[in-house]
């Protein structure tokens, strides 16, 4: 591990329990690099996670960490942030966690524009429970619960967040690490709800069922299918098939919930 990020890890909890080749470690690396660049006070920063592979990340990070119930990370984080707005709160959640059982909390956290930086580890599958399809599993992809190919259509999470009112939305992949770090920094600086979707590779539960090759092959797939918005605009409809846009997808300004509530409190306290 790079010496400059060691201080953010609970080294005694490593090595992590993720499968060989998993992309989650890359995301954690980008997260702590972003935290380091932002010079955040480690004692004033909380990491909240739900249940699943991604959610186990909180245990490895040396902050106040909260490993919650399935899908509820954003709801717990809302309590932390509203009760103590001065804390920096990052929410780490998987695609199954965030978009299925936690879908309602996701759209409402975005609607409130509460100042939470949410990183969704999108590996297109329920990894920890062994490879069942999630709301982010592509149509026709295989999962243990879609043995004949997924009949459902996936969410476009970024568009969902924008429609629900998120004021910063970005997407990267575990291939686009520099971009991911930058998006986390920008997401943190946004005064409101920020979503950073990370396309990550799950070679064990998703890649294997869908014949995507080695972890390196899956990273190459991300490289070849992740394009910037500018490039995407110049692609023909045929060329766009299977591609996903990376970079900043949405930026907006809106009143932030905890700040609005604080104004109300201060009115009564006569400040």
């Amino acid at each position, binding site marked *: 591990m790079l010496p400059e990020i060691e201080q953010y890890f609970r080294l005694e909890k490593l090595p992590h329990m993720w499968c060989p080749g998993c992309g989650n470690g890359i995301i954690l690396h980008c997260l702590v690099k972003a935290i380091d660049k932002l010079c955040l006070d480690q004692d004033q920063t909380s990491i909240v996670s739900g249940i699943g592979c991604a959610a186990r990340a*909180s245990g490895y990070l040396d902050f106040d960490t909260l490993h919650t119930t399935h899908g509820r990370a954003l709801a717990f984080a809302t309590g932390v942030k509203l009760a103590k707005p001065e804390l920096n709160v990052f929410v780490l959640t998987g695609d199954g966690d965030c978009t299925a059982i936690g879908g309602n909390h996701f759209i409402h956290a975005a609607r409130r524009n509460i100042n939470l930086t949410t990183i969704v580890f999108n590996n297109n599958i329920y990894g920890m429970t062994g490879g069942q399809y999630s709301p982010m599993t592509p149509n026709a992809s295989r999962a243990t619960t879609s043995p004949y190919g997924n009949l459902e259509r996936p969410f476009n999470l970024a568009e969902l967040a924008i429609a629900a009112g998120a004021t910063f939305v970005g997407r990267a992949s575990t291939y686009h690490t520099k971009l991911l770090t930058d998006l986390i920094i920008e997401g943190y600086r946004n005064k409101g709800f920020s979503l950073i979707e990370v396309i990550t590779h799950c070679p064990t539960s998703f890649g294997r069922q869908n014949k995507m090759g080695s972890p390196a092959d899956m990273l190459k797939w991300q490289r070849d299918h992740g394009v910037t918005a500018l490039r995407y605009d110049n692609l023909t409809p045929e060329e766009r098939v299977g591609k996903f846009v990376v970079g900043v997808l949405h930026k907006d300004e809106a009143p932030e919930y905890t700040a609005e509530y604080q104004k109300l409190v201060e009115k009564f306290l006569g400040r």
Partner: protein
Amino acid sequence: MSQEPRLVQGNEACAEGAIYAGMRFYAGYPITPSTEIAEILAKRLPQVGGKFIQMEDEIASMAAVIGASLTGAKSMTATSGPGFSLKQENIGYASMAEIPCVIVNVQRLGPSTGVATAPAQGDVMQARWGTHGDHPAIVVSPSSVRETFDLTVRAFNLAEKFRVPVIILMDEVVGHMREKVTLPEPGDLPIFNRVKPDCDRESYYPYRAQENEAPPMALFGEGYRFHVTGLFHDESGFATEKPDIVARQLRRLHHKISYNLDQVISYESQQTENAELVVIAYGGTYRAVARAVKLARAAGLKVGTFRPQTIWPFPEEAVSSLAQAGKKLLVVEMNYGQLLLEVQRVAGGRCGVYSCLQADGELTKPETILNKIREVY
């Protein structure tokens, strides 16, 4: 100088009692017949520097309450039967992770959506065993408006002292009833605040405690950088599956309550010494029982009352001694027999246990109870 007596609703007394206890964070989702608690707190909390949030659902409300409590805010939510069911998973989380909080359930007639505004007491067992796994529970049930205030304060004290979710099991009768009461002044009732660690970060173990106590609780943002999880965990707070550590943790969760029953259990009994028959009731039902017993006494029947204020843990010793003394026990409740099971268990065949049960959305009338008293006396 005491406050002027005024007309106060049960739900209002609950809200005001919570603020009196120091509650500064409320998250909830509206449901009849508990809504006044949320409405009052939406107005009152910002006035006292607290926070109110109407969450997107019941599950989120319970989650937010736990998150807020971790930052040091005394936290509460209020709901009714269907909402209480939804909160259960996170009530279990609070129990496991030892997060102090208070959950109010103003019961309505069920199952399911039931009758929204009808009084009922059908959630006695849900309050005890609603969440999965084997866990302790503290559940209090008030019978009057003033007692709602006092027991709400007590619920917070117990939650903070033992680091547990405490349930206030009300019913529609008490929640919506208005009574002339004098509310206490600051300082009149004791307030307990959670114990915080007095050590530095390196020597802090978030779950290190004697077998009969709750560990000191650090708060998020204080520099302790600790981990909280709903998984079984060791003293350091990190997940473990080692059977001896798992067993020790679960044992301590139970023992911190069961070794301190004298601090937790409260009840009220009247005229039991010379009674042939003791009527056991709680919450709104007790009000009709009190009237029935008065009529019975006037008719020369030796009848007393026993009213648990803490339903869980059940006041086993006190009821056991009534059974030992051979008094007949009559349980009156607005359900098909829930606390009755506990009374039967404790009585253990040493005395006659009878019941007067009604679950139709109406409060049991004193005459109905009096008839039952005459029948079994």
